[in-house]
Structures are given as structure tokens and as C-alpha cells.
């Protein structure tokens, strides 16, 4: 049995926001690699939870452990936007985005990292965004949350790297999803060396690699999947 197959026998992969867009593609890619994938969605998915609610996250973690067992791969992908200029941004628009995108990732990570520590093996991938390092107007909440994920990634890599658990981030650029459907793609493409927006599957391929056995020495890294936009 391969090293990865042994892990796949011992635990499952959890993908938050795994029912749509990039998350669904990540779930498919991990399944193709042999993982049993547990998707977390607000109203669909294998386990339902509002990732922005600490109580919901705690309950979801419990449900995952009861129904599916130990978690050896966690992809913190759930994310929402509530765009607007900071001057008019309400506390709830700020809070909802930070709670879901950043605090939710922390809650899931804290809930399942014990499984990985004991297995002396684990993979955590935080789905950040190109805007974490290349800010733009109108998304203070989203950008702060996604930049926070990069900080969280580094801190966790330092804390648990000695146990064979890696924590990495990916920063997708503009990817074809519901979240970017309303954007003017023709205008955007001017700034993307690849000359096109990305596909969810292209982000998923990067996540799959970071979750593989071969990626064991990559820890605390940020991998851009943006067609060269952030270069």
C-alpha cells in the first residue's frame, strides 16, 4: 500500500464550501486522488454548517468525527463577499466576511488538527486570494480576511510542522465561478498574462498537489494560481 493510501484508509478529507465553484472542483480532485471527501456547505453538502458561526463549526466538527472518522486533510475554502467601500461598510458586512473566511477556517482547523497531530501526518490548505497581497478598492473586509489567512497559514506551519502536518495557502486569481460571474472579464483579462480567467479545476490541481505525499516538505508556503497576474 502506498504511503498516501495508508493515510486515506486512516482518515478523510474535509473541504469547506465544497459544494460549489472552486470548492467542488477541489472535492472532485481529492476524490480522484483516492480520498473520501466530506464537503461542508451551508444548505447542502455532506455536513451542513454556517462556517461563520463558531457553534455551527463546533457541531460540524463533532458530526464529521462521528460519521466519517478522523480528518487528515482540511481545505479551508468557504468564503463570502460583501463588497463595498469602507466608508459605508457596516459592522455586519465586515463581521460576516471575517467570521466566515478567517474565523471559520481557524475553527475548523482547531477542531481537526488533533487528528493530524496524532497521526503524525496532515495537510491543511487555506484558500486565500490574489487580493491578499494585491489589494483593490471596495473589498476591505474580504481582503483583510484573505490576508489574515496567509498569516494564519504561517503561524500554524510553525506550530505543527514538526508533526508531519503541513499548512499552506493558495492565492487564486480570477477564476470562473458564481462569485466572479458579475465581473467584466474582458477588462480583467488585460491584467492577466495568461490572457484568460482561470478554471476551478486549475486551482484544484494546486490543492491536490499540496495534499499529496510528495508535498511533505512544502510548509507555510503560498502558491499563486493566477495566470501570472500577481507576478
Amino acid at each position, binding site marked *: 500500500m502506498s504511503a498516501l493510501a495508508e493515510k486515506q484508509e486512516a482518515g478523510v478529507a474535509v473541504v469547506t464550501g465544497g459544494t460549489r465553484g472552486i470548492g467542488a472542483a477541489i472535492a472532485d480532485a481529492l476524490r480522484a486522488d483516492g480520498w473520501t471527501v466530506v464537503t461542508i456547505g451551508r444548505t447542502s453538502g455532506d455536513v451542513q454548517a454556517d462556517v461563520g458561526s463558531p457553534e455551527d463549526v463546533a457541531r460540524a466538527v463533532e458530526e464529521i468525527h462521528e460519521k466519517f472518522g478522523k480528518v487528515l486533510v482540511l481545505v479551508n475554502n468557504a468564503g463570502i463577499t460583501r463588497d463595498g467601500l469602507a466608508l459605508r461598510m457596516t459592522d455586519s458586512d465586515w463581521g460576516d466576511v471575517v467570521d466566515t473566511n478567517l474565523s471559520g477556517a481557524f475553527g475548523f482547523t482547531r477542531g481537526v488538527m*488533533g487528528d493530524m*497531530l*496524532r497521526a*503524525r501526518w496532515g495537510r491543511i490548505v487555506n484558500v486565500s486570494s490574489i487580493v491578499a497581497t494585491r489589494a483593490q478598492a471596495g473589498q476591505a473586509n474580504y481582503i483583510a480576511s484573505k490576508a489574515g489567512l496567509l498569516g494564519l497559514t504561517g503561524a500554524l506551519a510553525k*506550530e*505543527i510542522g*514538526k*508533526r508531519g502536518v503541513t499548512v499552506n495557502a493558495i492565492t487564486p486569481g480570477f477564476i470562473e465561478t458564481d462569485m466572479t460571474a458579475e465581473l467584466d472579464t474582458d477588462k480583467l483579462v488585460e491584467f492577466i498574462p495568461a490572457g484568460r480567467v482561470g478554471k476551478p479545476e486549475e486551482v484544484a490541481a494546486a490543492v491536490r498537489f499540496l495534499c499529496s505525499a510528495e508535498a511533505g516538505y512544502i510548509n507555510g508556503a503560498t502558491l499563486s494560481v493566477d495566470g501570472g497576474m500577481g507576478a
Partner: protein
Amino acid sequence: MADLTEEGVLQRVRDELEAIKVPGAENAELDTTWEELDVDSLDLVELIKALEDEYQIVISDDELKPVETVGDAVKLTLKLAGTTA
């Protein structure tokens, strides 16, 4: 809940240290220090969390500071769980 006696909690600590793969965990005695077991801060946090869950207690950072041996952890657990050994 595991046996709430000195021997019971000691065994629980050994089992827990073994679960987090601390070498020599099965031979740990009350006077064994974390240093002797090569238990690092992450190991200790895992152990404490497991004891909190098992005995339904809360161990504060202040209470944790002076805990340097297996016996210190056992005594603290018994104290917080409302039993004196």
C-alpha cells in the same frame, strides 16, 4: 470517565502520552519530568486538552505553569476534578 484515583489518572496520562507518541510513555512515573520524557509544549497542550475532556475540567494557563512532572499533572487533575489523592 477514567478511574479518579492517583493510579487511574497516572495510567490515563501514560496512555495519552503514548497516543501522542512520546517515547517511553509507558514507563512514566509520578516523578518523571517532561524534560526526561522529551515532552515539548505542543505535546503538553495535547495532554492537557485530553485530560480536560476526559475529566471535564478546565486547566488555566496559570495552573499549568508549575506543572513540570507527570505527578504534577496527576495531582492537578485530581484537585480540579474534586478529589484529593
